[in-house]
């Protein structure tokens, strides 16, 4: 397997493993995450399409270290794995930190609204 192809696959797998074993933020189970990723994918095709277009490329790839597939237009398929790894990692840590700091409900032990009041009142006195 070409180097960039292998790195992209391993990179994405590493992020998924980090979520499942370490962070356990639960974003991969949220419908909003997948809807958001689909939206990001559309915009990624536009922006990455511009960056990689072979007529005037901003980023130039070494054919020897990647697969021959570019979809659509001139976007290397590896870029989707690279991008998805980056965005998933960021979203996982965002959600993980939100839960840790109490901004996000933890889901399994969702506290009644009244339980949250003393902390809110202390944090932001009116």
């Amino acid at each position, binding site marked *: 397997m070409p*180097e*960039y192809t292998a*790195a992209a696959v391993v*990179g994405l797998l590493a992020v998924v493993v980090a979520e499942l074993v370490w962070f356990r933020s639960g974003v991969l189970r*949220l*419908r*909003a*995450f997948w*809807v*958001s*990723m689909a*939206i*990001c994918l559309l*915009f990624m095709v536009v*922006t990455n399409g*511009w*960056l990689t277009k072979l007529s*005037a*490329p*901003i*980023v*130039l*790839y*070494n054919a*020897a*270290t*990647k697969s021959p597939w570019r979809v659509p237009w001139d976007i290397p398929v590896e870029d989707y794995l*690279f*991008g998805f790894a*980056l*965005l998933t*990692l*960021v*979203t996982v*840590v*965002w959600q993980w*930190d*939100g839960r840790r*700091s109490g*901004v996000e409900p933890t889901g399994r032990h969702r506290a009644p609204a009244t339980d949250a009041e003393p902390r809110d009142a202390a944090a932001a006195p009116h």
Partner: protein
Amino acid sequence: MDHLQYLMVLGACLLVTLPLEVVLGARVYRQPRRLAVAVLPAAALFYLWDAVAVSRGHWTFSASYVTGVTLPLGVPLEELAFFVVVPICSLLSFEAVRNLLDADRRTAVPVLALVRRRGSLRAAGSRPVAGDR
């Protein structure tokens, strides 16, 4: 101008996604500590990935479309900007989608609150104030 092309693509990303914070109440920029915790470590990891990829010849950058400012380990300034800007855009998207999908969060969407206010015929002459319920 051509040398700014890559940076302008990233600037366009920030501009296009800004309404998600303002209109759809994403609250990403308004949680700067959480944003830094989420974005900076990932940006650092992908910066290193980029440095390795550049050194191993996986990709190069057109001298015509970048500023030419190169950071340590041979990574162009634009790539670091990419690793910060694109994750911010995706978090804005994630939070905006959540606000729209989750009934509990829908109350936090400014544009929907505005529509409700219009509906109750209170809008004439009064501008919504931040934090106003």
